[in-house]
């Protein structure tokens, strides 16, 4: 059998990935997943009412409510983004196989990598849009509430005879708990963590036979990721492995494959009004990109030879 030379495919990889990504986004959006944003709006507004009456001085006026808004909002963002990234990714691939729509796509001149990358980007686009909406809502609520708290604090401080410097210092302290760059960085970190989980769910769904299996295993790995660093340290320093080279390699291999989600605890520090170091943001970004790429390439490796 004589084989004809290769001919280039019409359109670019980026173009096909974009088409599949926007389609996956539309598919999920038409499944009415954005309804949960209404729940978030209720949460963001409800968190305004958690202002405990413990005003011993102007410093404590409204401190609880600002903390509560950030805590509830970032908590809800984490929950929604992780659930959405795992469940949506776990759903897309098996559904295409079950409905045989996958056959019609792969029977077109579409490389399997383009298909996988498109599906993943579609989910990430959905998570990004959802987080952006939640971020805007949180920022607006926090902005309004911060202005109210500052007004209240200044009135009380001036009434108690605070100096202008002390009032300015109080204002700066309160603004650190309001909407700022650190908070936006924390939201970006939430997105990075969701991206890792989506790419991990994609990898599992390439060999799993059901959406349920993919979802359960992904959540298990998510929880393991929160204590794998502790377990690794314990194994190296307190366990029987000791400090051998083999033990180090084993620990390194685990951390290369399983993400350490403790690194994302910096989000909790931001809720407490602390800064988000730029170096930490860069580190998390690199980690997010590394794991997303690693899991996507591993998915491709399995999916490339998969038979349907």
């Amino acid at each position: 059998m004589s084989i004809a030379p290769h001919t280039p495919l019409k359109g670019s990889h980026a173009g096909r990935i974009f088409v599949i990504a926007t389609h996956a986004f539309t598919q999920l959006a038409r499944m009415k997943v954005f309804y949960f944003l209404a729940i978030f709006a209720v949460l963001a507004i409800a968190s305004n009412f958690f202002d405990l009456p413990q005003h011993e001085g102007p410093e404590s006026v409204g401190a609880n409510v600002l903390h509560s808004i950030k805590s509830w909002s970032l908590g809800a963002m984490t929950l929604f983004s992780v659930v959405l990234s795992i469940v949506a990714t776990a759903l897309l691939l098996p559904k295409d196989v079950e409905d045989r729509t996958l056959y019609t796509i792969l029977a077109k001149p579409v490389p399997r990598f383009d298909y996988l990358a498109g599906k993943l980007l579609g989910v990430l686009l959905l998570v990004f849009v959802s987080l952006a909406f939640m971020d805007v809502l949180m920022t607006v609520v926090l902005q309004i509430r911060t202005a109210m708290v500052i007004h209240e604090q200044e009135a009380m401080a001036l009434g108690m005879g605070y100096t202008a410097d002390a009032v300015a210092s109080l204002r700066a302290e309160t603004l650190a708990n309001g909407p700022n760059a650190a908070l936006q960085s924390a939201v970006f970190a939430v997105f990075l963590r969701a991206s890792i989980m989506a790419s991990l769910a994609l990898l599992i769904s390439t060999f799993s036979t059901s959406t349920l299996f993919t979802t359960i295993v992904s959540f298990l790995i998510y929880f393991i990721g929160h204590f794998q660093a502790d377990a690794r340290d314990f194994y190296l320093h307190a366990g029987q492995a000791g400090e051998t080279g083999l033990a180090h390699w084993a620990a390194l291999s685990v951390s290369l494959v399983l993400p350490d989600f403790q690194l994302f605890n910096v989000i909790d520090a931001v809720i407490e009004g602390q800064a988000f170091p730029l170096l930490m943001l860069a580190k998390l970004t690199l980690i997010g990109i590394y794991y997303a790429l690693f899991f996507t390439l591993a998915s491709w490796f399995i999916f490339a030879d998969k038979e349907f």
Partner: protein
Amino acid sequence: MADTPPAVEIRNLVKDFKTSFRRLPLRAVDDVSIRIQPGEVYGLIGPNGSGKSTTMKALLGLVAPTAGQCAIFGKDSLQVDSRNDVGFLPENPYFYKHLSGAETLRFYGKLCGLGGRQLTDRVNELLALVDLEGARDRRLGGYSKGMLQRIGLAQALVQEPRLVILDEPTAGVDPVGSRQIRDLIVKLRERGITVFLCSHLLEQVQEVCDQVGIIFQGKMIKEGRLEDLIAIEDQTEIILRDASPELLAQITALIASTPGAALVRTGKPRTTLERLFLREIRDDKR
């Protein structure tokens, strides 16, 4: 023409599937070879589970052959560029229910690198071809089975492929829808598009195919031109219109007086139940 590669060339295809509990693999396709020239309509027939769909999937690169080779217009089926020239309609496809008919075609068209005015024109042309212009903006969730098959056929044709592969294109479709799909296949043949279809509905295959292969338990047991395969070599058919009883008596007497010849059967030709059904519902509509 001598340089034109065959539209489909399957050579000694073998496909084994691993089984979970038994150690022996299941052989779904066993040394099957098929060659389809451009412009032909080839029907692969066989009972359920005989290896028809697996053969088609191997040709589309959806499964990898255990042995043998598949090529589309000379290009190895395992390479993505072989799909530039092929459109595929799987058995009982569902497609994306959240998309309308026009959106579905736009989606598949974009995957094939089409865009702009060219894509819009192509979508309109295909919706007209499959008679779904009236349902272009309706979501596929509201389509009937026959409409789904037709939109499926339209998506298979979106990039103007030279080869169309249809897996049980009329499965589960009512006689009217089935007829529409067969008419479409005939139109494709008239346009010079090669069609490779598989079905276990023999009458349909007989109506549209030039070449036929019969596959059973994974093996190709008979293959050739349809006319050659179904002709009864030692019999001749004469169909008369308005023949008088006297003429028929003369013909019968002539045959009886001819040594070696025998009259096998006389009677009125019959239409098929399907043609009768289609004629009746057409008359009823008027």
